[in-house]
């Protein structure tokens, strides 16, 4: 009798733990799904230089000492990506930025922009191994593009014209900027509303 109970309890424990793990795995998958289907297209906060307008031009010094031109006519387009060491989503998107910079390197330069305490920024720059990107610190740049929430991206074409911009939370949203540029629409939201 006692050993029958003991075995029953042991078997039940195995099942309880297995089920707890299974429910956890399901919740994890649901989390990933939520992330993937999150708002279609990058949310555009309609402030700052409008899509189709010339962006104000900047010449800034990057953390590695090089000089970076933003918004001036050049051989390549520019993706200005606003980040901060304190924003968890920014950190998550850095591998995505790396792969986009590699895939689009024929016509695009990816520039990271931030502002604030330089020591903290440098620590972040080194820790996240951002050496491949020009990293500029400028409060004025963020103010000009009216960046209110991070991570925020602005896509400029070769002539320095704003082609797409928005708040970015996922790879899909970042890619939507390029789609918006190809389709010649202001944002994917606007495109979907027209359709």
């Amino acid at each position: 009798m006692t050993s029958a109970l003991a075995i029953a309890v042991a078997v039940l424990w195995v099942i309880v733990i297995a089920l707890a793990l299974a429910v956890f795995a399901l919740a994890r998958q649901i989390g990933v799904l939520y992330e993937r289907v999150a708002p279609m297209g990058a949310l555009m906060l309609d402030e700052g230089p409008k899509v189709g307008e010339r962006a104000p031009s900047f010449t800034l010094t990057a953390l590695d000492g090089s000089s970076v031109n933003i918004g001036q006519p050049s051989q390549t387009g520019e993706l200005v990506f606003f980040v901060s060491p304190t924003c968890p989503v920014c950190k998550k998107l850095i591998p995505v930025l790396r792969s986009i910079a590699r895939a689009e390197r024929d016509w695009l330069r990816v520039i990271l922009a931030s502002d604030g305490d330089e020591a903290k920024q440098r620590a972040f720059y080194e820790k996240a191994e951002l050496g491949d990107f020009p990293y500029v610190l400028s409060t004025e740049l963020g103010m000009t593009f009216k960046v209110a929430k991070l991570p925020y991206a602005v896509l400029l074409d070769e002539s320095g014209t704003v082609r797409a911009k928005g708040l970015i939370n996922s790879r899909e949203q970042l890619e939507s900027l390029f789609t918006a540029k190809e389709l010649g629409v202001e944002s994917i939201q606007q495109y979907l509303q027209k359709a």
Partner: protein
Amino acid sequence: MTLDPVLQLTALAALALVFASAAWHKLRDLLAFELALEAYALLPGWLLRPFARALPLAELTAVALLLFAPTRGAGSVLALALLALVTGAVALNLLRGRTDVGCGCGGIEDEQTLSWALVARNLLLALLGATGLAATTPRALLWLDYLSVGAGALALFFVVVLANQLIANHPRLARLRVRPA
């Protein structure tokens, strides 16, 4: 009211697992934790670095104290104090209306933003810790009791991990509900 020793041991072992995993996640990426602490905007800049190191070490100390019978009471007190400290920090930021701050708790919780759900979760964890202060009915433990303690603690720990995942999912679901105009 006295407690059966198996219930107490299960609760404390589960709490020790939760603390050990929290400390491990913090120590694995100290800079990330330091930045998360800064986002809480509660400590002066010079205190961030020492505090970011002291907190996971205090958590590990609580784990070590919880593991052994003679120090179990002290471990419970330390664990409760740490829970009160971090829950207070979360609640203060919530009262200031700052819900877009990352939790910085490490692991899955890294994706969590501050919410009252975190406070509720910590109160339930405190309930586990409080069993360490309760009197127990002395009785001889069988091998089956140890199975209950081990398996029960593991199951409780997975439920906490599961709760963390659900808390992290919630803001994402909320974002899906409101479609941008």
